[in-house]
């Protein structure tokens, strides 16, 4: 049997006898013969029987070697590359304390807490997570996680359209372009109309009106994709003028310095929770943050944990308002999400607890300092210009004298992940640069020196 199947031959025989069978193959007698693959060892070249065309299993050490070989073919941030790339995925400090506790096997190998009596650990951690997300977004309710920032936007779109019964949504061009693309993909099914509102001077220039009817909501990113700080209060005013809801895509690190979107009137806040303790991971698993007002809670997608008591009055936690969910309401559910990103939410809760009030601010300040120093240093390089004249926080966009893709490749040779090449829609030869609290003056200065060489 395979590595992870415990049954010994005598046990198999005994069990088969108990169920009245004499071979493992007979277990599959209900499967029509024509559909069945053959059991037993794969026939060497040209055998007649149909088998999976997969190599035989590797031993564990061989498996490890293979994975290590693959890992060795990547340039990782840290030893290989000093990271100045962001665009929704940031190189933040992840303390050992957070990882070692969050990845305890009770959290890792549990299922969705369907039996609350033996799942208080995950439930309480999620309740605390919800509280923290509620606080950093400034809204009363947060769910227990969604897949990532992009799909959180998709869920927000579904929510606002259902709440407003209007199919149109205005999307700031400052919303992450990959998130907008994801929204477009899903809008085909739901029939939403997505209208992009351009950035002007690095900020969203909300129109008085735009095609096809009043919007259900405005979506704005804070900071936006180019790193610019948006005027959320202004967005709220525009939304009000249209009787629309306001959805803010918020960077949780920004919560260390900026007004919470909730305090500025946002109805829904979404975000990418990766900066809260999750490594870059080629983009996943990440964490979709989702918060909203109490008024909209019945439309909340995904799971929600609530406090209650047990039969003896002891404080306890349980998933609640479950009638929103697909397993109960099926085709009328507020969302189809079932498996979410619980473990990443637990990580984020630990990371936020590790940061605390002062740490969250300190984190944001340190990111902002590194970003400002990077910005000032590279703007001093001839031919490097700001892409937009807007206040930034932890990321900024520049126009380069050379193709960004080329710059990124050559900077990699110098030991830097230089940033992200910007989409054409934002203008020519744009590079998006982020510097986190992990970047030191020495690294930034070396980066600037390398960039100067490369763009020359």
């Amino acid at each position: 049997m395979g590595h992870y199947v415990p049954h010994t031959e005598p046990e198999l025989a005994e069990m088969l006898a108990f169920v009245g069978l004499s071979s493992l193959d007979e277990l599959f007698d209900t499967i029509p013969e024509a559909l069945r693959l053959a059991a037993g060892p794969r026939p060497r070249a040209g055998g007649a029987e149909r088998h999976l065309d997969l190599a035989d299993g590797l031993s564990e050490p061989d498996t490890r070697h293979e994975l290590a070989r693959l890992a060795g073919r990547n340039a990782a941030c840290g030893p290989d590359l000093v990271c100045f790339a962001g665009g929704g995925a940031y190189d933040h400090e992840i303390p050992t304390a957070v990882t070692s506790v969050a990845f305890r096997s009770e959290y890792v190998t549990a299922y969705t807490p369907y039996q609350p009596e033996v799942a208080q650990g995950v439930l309480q951690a999620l309740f605390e997570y919800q509280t923290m997300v509620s606080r950093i977004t400034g809204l009363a309710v947060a769910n227990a996680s969604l897949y990532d920032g992009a799909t959180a936007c998709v869920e927000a779109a579904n929510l606002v359209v259902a709440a407003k019964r209007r199919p149109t949504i205005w999307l700031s061009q400052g919303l992450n372009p990959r998130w907008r693309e994801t929204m477009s993909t899903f809008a085909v099914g739901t029939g939403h109309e997505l209208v992009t509102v351009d950035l002007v001077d690095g900020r969203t220039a909300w129109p008085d009106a735009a095609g096809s009817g009043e919007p259900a909501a405005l979506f704005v990113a804070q900071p936006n994709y180019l790193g610019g700080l948006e005027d959320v209060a202004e967005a709220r005013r525009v939304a009000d003028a249209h009787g629309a809801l306001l959805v803010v895509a918020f960077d949780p690190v920004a919560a260390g310095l900026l007004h919470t979107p909730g305090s500025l009137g946002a109805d829904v806040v979404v975000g990418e929770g990766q900066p809260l303790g999750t490594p870059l991971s080629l983009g996943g698993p990440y964490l979709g943050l989702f918060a909203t007002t109490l008024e909209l809670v019945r439309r909340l997608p995904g799971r929600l944990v609530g406090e209650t008591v047990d039969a003896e009055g002891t404080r306890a936690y349980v998933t609640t308002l479950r009638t929103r969910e697909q397993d109960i309401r099926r085709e009328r559910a507020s969302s189809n999400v079932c498996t979410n990103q619980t473990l990443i939410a637990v990580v984020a809760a630990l990371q936020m607890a590790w940061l605390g009030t002062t740490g969250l601010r300190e984190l944001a300040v340190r990111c902002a300092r590194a970003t400002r120093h990077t910005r000032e240093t590279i703007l001093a390089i001839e031919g490097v210009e700001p892409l937009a004249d807007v206040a930034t926080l932890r990321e900024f966009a520049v126009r380069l004298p050379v193709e960004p893709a080329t710059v990124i490749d050559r900077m990699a040779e110098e030991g830097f992940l230089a940033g992200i090449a910007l989409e054409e829609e934002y203008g020519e030869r744009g590079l998006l640069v982020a510097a986190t609290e992990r970047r030191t003056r020495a690294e930034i200065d070396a980066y600037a020196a390398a960039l100067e060489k490369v763009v020359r």
Partner: protein
Amino acid sequence: MTDVTTDSEVANGASGARGAKPGGRATSIPLMGHDEEPTIFELSSPGRRAWSFRTQDLPEWSAEELVPADQLAPAPVVLAEVSERDLVAHYTRLSHRQYAVDLGAYPLGSCTMKYNPKVCDEAASLPGLADVHPAAPAHLTQGWLELLVALGEGLCEVTGMHDITLQPPAGAAGELTGLLLMRAWHEAQGRQRTKVIIPDSAHGTNPASVTLGGYETVTVKSDERGCVSLAALQEVLDEDVAGIMLTNPNTLGLFEEEIAEIAAAVHEVGGLLYYDGANLNAILGVTRPGDMGFDIVHMNLHKTFAVPHGGGGPGAGPVAVSPRLAPYLPGPKPVRGADGVYGWAQPERSIGRVHGWHGNALALARAYAYLIANGGDGLRSIAEAAVLNANWIRHALRGSYDIPFDRPCMHECVVSATTLKKTKGVKALDVAKRLLEEGFHSPTVYFPLIVDEALMIEPTETESPQTVAALAEALVRIADGASPADAEAPRVNAVRRVDEARAARQLVPTFDARQEATPSPSPSPPSGAEQGAEELKAVGSI
């Protein structure tokens, strides 16, 4: 004694009584007692801290210098302020209040809670995989791309499909992706289809995804054998049907024997077949959805490929398709160039991306480790043992529980507490709670919906014959001793039965809402009555 106490401690009232205890007291771990664990906020003390950052050696610009005045928050967001010591202790204590596969059997039908080999954890924590930026150019991420391509090829082989997207981060996301592929394909054929057929035994995500895919759900009833009836299917099949979503084995753990005929019938009217891969564990190396005639297949790598469930995620829900659907797959897709160099490519008529980056990559790395460690030979033995365990337990429970469809099952078996309820007043839910007292997680209850008082038992292949026997024995003992007192269960666990109704009625979704414990917001759908009934039904479902 002085009053070195936190605010919240005061709020909690006199200690000594049962309740959340401050500080490093561990009465909340079952080893030490049966108290509540305070929330992290109640452990907070202003000014305390765990954080620590690298020395940057940068100008110490202040917040005011860094942020325009109108953007700067007047005060920082208040979070818990704890020491690393309290942080670690709190979440370690919480972990002792949590059941998990690594502690024992978890026979939760449909969820495939098998043991996840630790070697896969190691794969996911390799810095060369974990510390790679998703926007790094392809030539810096050849290892990742090679892994993704190889995983995709392996999964296509396992399912008998032609091409694949690894982007969907969970099963439901895979379903919706599949439905959008279906839609794109029909539209490219110039057809406007409106309906998707789903058996009444299907998982709730299926109809929910259908709605989001812009289709209408048409439910087809299962026949007396627990399978899709070809006759009933024929009745609803017409030119409006975009496709059918099936899981095979179905949620009763039964193989749809007429699958070839079903496929033919659906294809006949121009519809597509979607395979819900939640139950793939049963057929690894035994039969393949592609060979059955399916056009679109999603996999739950967190079920079949040993990605741990993480308390509810993250998972991964790749979608594999037949050749005609390949051009529509989401992009960018990892590909191997003719020169052996890997890169990203956009399928010709891609529906676009379904994830902000490339899907739950580290979960995919785990699945890849699992795939190559098992290999073709290992995968088949998984199915064999999973199916054997389920049939064994079905046999063992005969006489103690109703078995609505008592014929050879695949990897799970559904039994019912109908008779128990009638004769002894003991419901499926009570059996579930009693099982918690016996040291097992309970099976899935009240699903599939077509079985009254359902208990859906999936032992999985990683449980030994001894464990399966112990589980059966416990279930038999529960049935034998069933009495109205079982409504009191569980009695030996960290908390007693939890008041789910109150949680919904008096919503406390955050620590901050605790004080003002709001009665649940009202007049949004569903209406009150419906709500109550459904809330009740919700208990213990999946």
